[in-house]
């Protein structure tokens, strides 16, 4: 009699362990493996949501700054021909529409996002410096420039985390080279951003931040489609 009770309880325990382990193993490989205190596991869709929110905010700030610049400088909007700006990121091949973005491979899309973010690291820093020295702008604008600069940095780290997680989960292959050496990504013949004026810099960044936001959203709904797409 006690033997049967023991065996039955053992079976229950085993069942419970199996069930609980099955639940936890779905879609969540732990990022912190060292058992660090206070390190809680984030799911992939959660990570995606965060970086998307971040990119949305970054684009919002760049839009605000751009419209402020337009008020101050009133550049002639309708320049004839292609006298207009050439962004230093023009050499990075980016999908220019929804279908093209959807057709692009996940690894490629992730790489494009990372390339863009890396390319803007230095120019934004210098932009912020030049804003700080200009006395025409109020503190509000220069704070925004600083925030923008920080956000690019954080967003890049976030996207790298996402890519890492995707690689761990086996969603993408390990061919994303940006994680290895970021500076390799910048093509050597890119236009020198130092020659660009502040206003053009802002214009280009506004565009690129919008690209990043859209690409991230496409990527998210392709990889984790169930959560709010």
């Amino acid at each position, binding site marked *: 009699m006690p033997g049967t009770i023991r065996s039955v309880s053992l079976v229950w325990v085993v069942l419970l362990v199996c069930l609980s382990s099955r639940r936890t193993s779905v879609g969540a490989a732990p990022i912190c493996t060292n058992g660090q205190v206070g390190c809680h596991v984030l799911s992939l869709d959660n990570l995606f949501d965060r970086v998307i929110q971040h990119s949305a905010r970054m684009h919002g700030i760049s839009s605000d700054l751009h419209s402020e610049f337009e008020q101050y400088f009133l550049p002639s909007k*309708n320049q004839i021909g292609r006298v207009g700006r050439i962004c230093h990121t023009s050499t990075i091949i980016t999908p*220019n529409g*929804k279908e093209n973005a959807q057709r692009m491979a996940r690894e490629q899309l992730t790489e494009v996002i990372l390339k863009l973010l890396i390319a803007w690291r230095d120019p934004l820093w210098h932009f912020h410096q030049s804003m700080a020295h200009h006395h025409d702008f109020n503190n509000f604008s220069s704070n925004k420039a600083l925030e923008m600069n920080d956000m690019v940095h954080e967003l890049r780290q976030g996207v790298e985390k996402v890519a890492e997680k995707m690689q761990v989960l086996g969603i993408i292959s390990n061919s994303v080279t940006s994680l290895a050496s970021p500076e390799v990504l910048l093509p050597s013949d890119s236009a020198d951003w130092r020659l660009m004026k502040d206003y053009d810099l802002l214009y280009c960044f506004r565009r690129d931040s*919008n690209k990043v936001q859209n690409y991230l959203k*496409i990527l998210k709904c392709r990889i984790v489609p169930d959560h709010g797409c």
Partner: protein
Amino acid sequence: MRRDLRGALLLLLTAAVQSSSMSAPGKPVLLSCRSPEKETFTCWWEPGSDGGLPTTHHLYYERERLEGTYECPDYLSAGRNSCFFDKNHTSIWVDYYLTVMASNALGNATSDPFKMDVMEIVKPDAPENVTLRVEEREASPCLHVRWMPPSNTDTKSGWVTIKYELRVKKDNSNNWKEYTSGTQTHFSLYSVSPGGVYTVQVRCLLDHGEWSEWSNTTFVKISNYLQNERPLSMLISILSAILFIMAGLILIAKRKSVKQWVLPPVPGPKIRGINSQLLQSGGSDDVGNVLIIKQSFPPIYFVWEDQMEDYLIVTENEDWLSSNSQKRKKSLIPACFHFDSEIHSKESPCHKNDWEKDEEISQVDNNNKPFTNTGYVDFQRHVENVDVKHVDYSRVKEVKSDNILFLEKEKVQSSGYIHFQRQEGIPEDYSRVKEVESDNLVVLQKQNAADLSCKDEGNHYTDCALHKPRKPHVCTELSDSGYVDTIPAPPLM
């Protein structure tokens, strides 16, 4: 004549010219472009004057990162004076430079270039299929609004994120109340009241673009069903009012017992020595004296002069002595100590044998003070229960030498003697009356040698008390409860 002819000809010519004013067309103006879903876009222009001739318009564009000039792919889908760019011809994040050219037989006219990026011109269509549903709950009704996103937007792929806003107005007022709905396609309104017509409109926004137009109005009437509920609530209120009144009546009828229960009578204080019966009967003078003495107020001196003095008799009952002397002595000690430490300038009551002035009486009162810490001295006079022997005292007028006392003659009683404590172990501070001569001279017995030293310093015995180190004066008696009763002193001699 010729002049008239020439004039007429001129007139004709001008008329002819005016009626058929053919000229090159006026300059068209590009108005705006709009992309409803960030995948296609449409541009509109306004033509200038047509110059009297059939004029055609062509839209040409150049694009960043694309060589050459191209013409509009679709002039028809979006109506007159418009150009529709389908998905194949739309690129986002690139600049378009558009120009419209109007041309007729006489010439062309080109509009100013219009630069745009599809990213900047996003404005969605209004949400569709707005439905309202009234949910009637007991407390207040609520309104559920539901709608669909515009049909041409692609939300599944995550390409665009749609945010909604709705506005509500009641009846015919012009005050719209706006609410943001985030990305939900439904919303519940709780601040609606019955008996009104509510109009609801919804609009949406794509990413960072412009808000769409408001959707078509949808309205709903909420029925006034509150009247049905009124009788029920009235009934309930009437019933509860009746119950309250009944409870109140019962309470009033039984108020005495209620009062007894709520506020039970509190036993009053009993002061020993004061007979409440006496108080009530109104023996005011005696009682007044008693009360006056008990208080710690400065004594009313004039009262004393009118009356016979009452003295503080502090003695030890012989009966009590026999029972437990040890205990008594212990209890007696603190009181006396107390006195000695506090009243060193005045006579200690322990051997009160010097009744000189009213000062003494005040002393008595003062002495009462320390006493009260450990007990109180009870004055009893004319109390039936206690058999107090009436004792006569005399006032000492003068002390001569160390053993002669002169008494005052104004004493009521003729027999003058001084009362001393008499007990077994008489302390050294007391003196025995040796002899009474005449009616106001008292000779005291001389003390033994041990007390001579203190005697030498003064005549008054207070000095003795001062110099004697803390010897217990068996002068007061304290019962176990701490009360001191006046005991009838046995007359000396």
